[in-house]
């Protein structure tokens, strides 16, 4: 009876996951979708705690520990999630993802211990045991296979996520050595061989091999993510996300637990597709991201020499020009996010609006370091949603714009994407700011952006540079305009 109800609860939870994810894909229903999935999850968790029965009909025990773990996890999780700054969102997601991976790896570990203890208790067992035979043992081989898959994938996901978190935090630097990709491939092959050895040839020392596999998987996870450019992290996180999904599904296989299986596979499939979509939105291939052709290392190599003359504009001039414009469009980019300048940017916007200027924002889909990054940031600063124009719409509006103010954006306004077939970003849709009457660019130097390439926009006659940290410059601009 209890088990029947639990089955039903699991079924419901699986459906809520699908519906939740589906609703998450539409702006209007996203929040409700998230809550629905959360409710389904709660159902599944508490159902498991109270209704689960093992093969012999025994209830779970150790309730104290379980609840302690749940409460502790919830407390830390909620606190972390509430405290985190909007700009640090990718780090947070990455960290949570790593926790899931670690959880899957731990489960695999415990189950392996269980299995090997059971085996050692079989009276007349002769090592090595070959599980892959035609008799009943193949079931054990299947079990081992799943345990190992959970261990390897979970560990890689855990280690990779932690490294990704560190990189986004700025704590871990890009690091790569010659032949690292070969090294990684060899490492992966070793891990897989060891796993095969364990399955085909189980001996007393297999315990050690198991922990060796665990260790190597962690190392692999680290070296997998280390060389990838810090800015490519969102793609990597999405990929690791789908890894963890698969690891969770392994757990589902292990316990013949459908909600883990379906939930895990759902995220695995969705995460993989999301990764590919993100790559597409940045006009790159997944392989290109993973091998890191311009993700980071190359950035350092690209020079700071400039390809022409640019002119600067003074704070005062910029303030005057904007105050007397009739239509100003702000183009936010990665620089705005790192400078945490979204609030003062909103202040500037309000100030100008009070002076009768029509101010809107042009949001490029991959501006910043996360898809939709700018929408989240500006939403945080209380900018009215209707002021955020999507790329297509903005591109139609630039013709009638007096001043475009670019705040820490670079690649997303680089005309090379349209004109130069040799450019790595060729083909990426961009914000065509040069159609407006005047372009003011705020950044700290003439250094290139994420793609590591020169931006000819900066050298055009209608462009003026306004150097400095976005937050500082905006604060001064606001002060300046107030005195006008």
């Amino acid at each position, binding site marked *: 009876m209890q088990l029947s109800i639990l089955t039903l609860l699991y079924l419901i939870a699986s459906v809520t*996951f699908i519906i939740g994810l589906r609703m998450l894909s539409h702006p209007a229903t996203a929040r409700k979708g998230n809550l629905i999935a959360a409710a389904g999850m709660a159902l599944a968790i508490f159902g498991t705690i109270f209704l689960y029965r093992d093969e012999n009909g025994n209830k779970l025990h150790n309730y104290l520990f379980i609840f302690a773990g749940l409460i502790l996890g919830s407390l830390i*999780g909620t606190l972390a999630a509430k405290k985190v700054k909007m700009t640090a969102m990718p780090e947070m997601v990455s960290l949570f993802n790593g926790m*899931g991976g670690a959880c899957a790896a731990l489960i695999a570990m415990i189950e392996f211990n269980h299995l090997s203890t059971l085996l050692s208790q079989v009276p007349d067992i002769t090592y090595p045991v070959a599980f892959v035979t035609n008799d009943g043992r193949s079931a054990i081989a299947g079990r081992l296979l799943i345990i190992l898959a959970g261990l390897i994938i979970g560990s890689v996901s855990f280690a990779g996520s932690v490294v990704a978190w560190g990189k986004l935090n700025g704590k871990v630097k890009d690091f790569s050595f010659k032949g690292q990709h070969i090294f990684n491939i060899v490492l992966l092959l070793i891990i897989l061989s060891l796993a095969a050895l364990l399955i085909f040839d189980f001996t007393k020392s297999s315990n050690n091999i198991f922990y060796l596999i665990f260790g190597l998987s962690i190392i692999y996870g680290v070296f997998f993510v280390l060389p990838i450019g810090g800015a490519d992290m969102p793609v990597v996180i999405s990929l690791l996300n789908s890894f*963890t*999904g698969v690891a969770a599904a392994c757990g589902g296989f292990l316990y013949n637990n459908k909600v883990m299986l379906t939930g895990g596979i759902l*995220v695995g499939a969705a995460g993989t597709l999301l990764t590919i979509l993100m790559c597409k939105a940045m006009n790159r291939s997944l392989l290109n991201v993973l091998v890191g052709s311009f993700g980071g290392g190359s950035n350092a190599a690209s020079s700071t020499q400039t390809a022409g003359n640019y002119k600067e504009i003074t704070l005062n001039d910029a303030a005057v020009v904007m105050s007397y414009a009739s239509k100003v469009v702000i183009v936010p980019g990665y620089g705005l996010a790192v400078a945490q300048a979204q609030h003062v940017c909103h202040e500037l916007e309000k100030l100008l609006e009070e002076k009768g200027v029509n101010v809107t924002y042009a949001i490029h889909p991959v501006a910043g370091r996360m898809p*939709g990054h700018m929408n989240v940031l500006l*939403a945080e600063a209380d900018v009215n949603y209707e002021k955020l124009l999507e790329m297509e719409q903005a591109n139609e509006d630039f013709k009638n714009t007096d001043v475009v103010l670019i705040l820490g954006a670079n690649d997303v306004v680089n005309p090379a994407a349209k004109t130069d077939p040799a450019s790595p970003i060729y083909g990426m849709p961009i914000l065509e700011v040069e159609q407006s009457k005047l372009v003011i660019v705020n950044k700290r130097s003439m250094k290139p952006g994420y793609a590591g390439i020169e931006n000819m926009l900066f050298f055009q006659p209608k462009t003026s540079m306004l150097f400095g940290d976005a937050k500082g410059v905006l604060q001064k601009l606001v002060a300046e305009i107030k005195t006008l």
Partner: protein
Amino acid sequence: MQNILSWITANEQMFYIVILMIFVGIEVIGRVPSVLHTPLMSGANAIHGVVVIGAIIVMGKAEANNYLSLILGFLAVVLGTLNVVGGFVVTDRMLEMFKSKKKK
């Protein structure tokens, strides 16, 4: 070969479930606007926290004197819960901002 085939037969329904779920996952995500990629990622992230159920089962089955299992299991429960709760809360926080702006 024989082995693999009979394994597939034995787990026929599981395979159907997995394959259908893959289709559902792909179809559901198929046409998302890139504006929503971040919350979608973190929402999916929370869903795979379902792995915590495995941790609960492991924990609940461990004998009271098997300290290794107890400790690892406890850790697994904490980490899994972190993933679930943190994931859903953070997603909600992001989406809340989206929403309130819209109503205005």
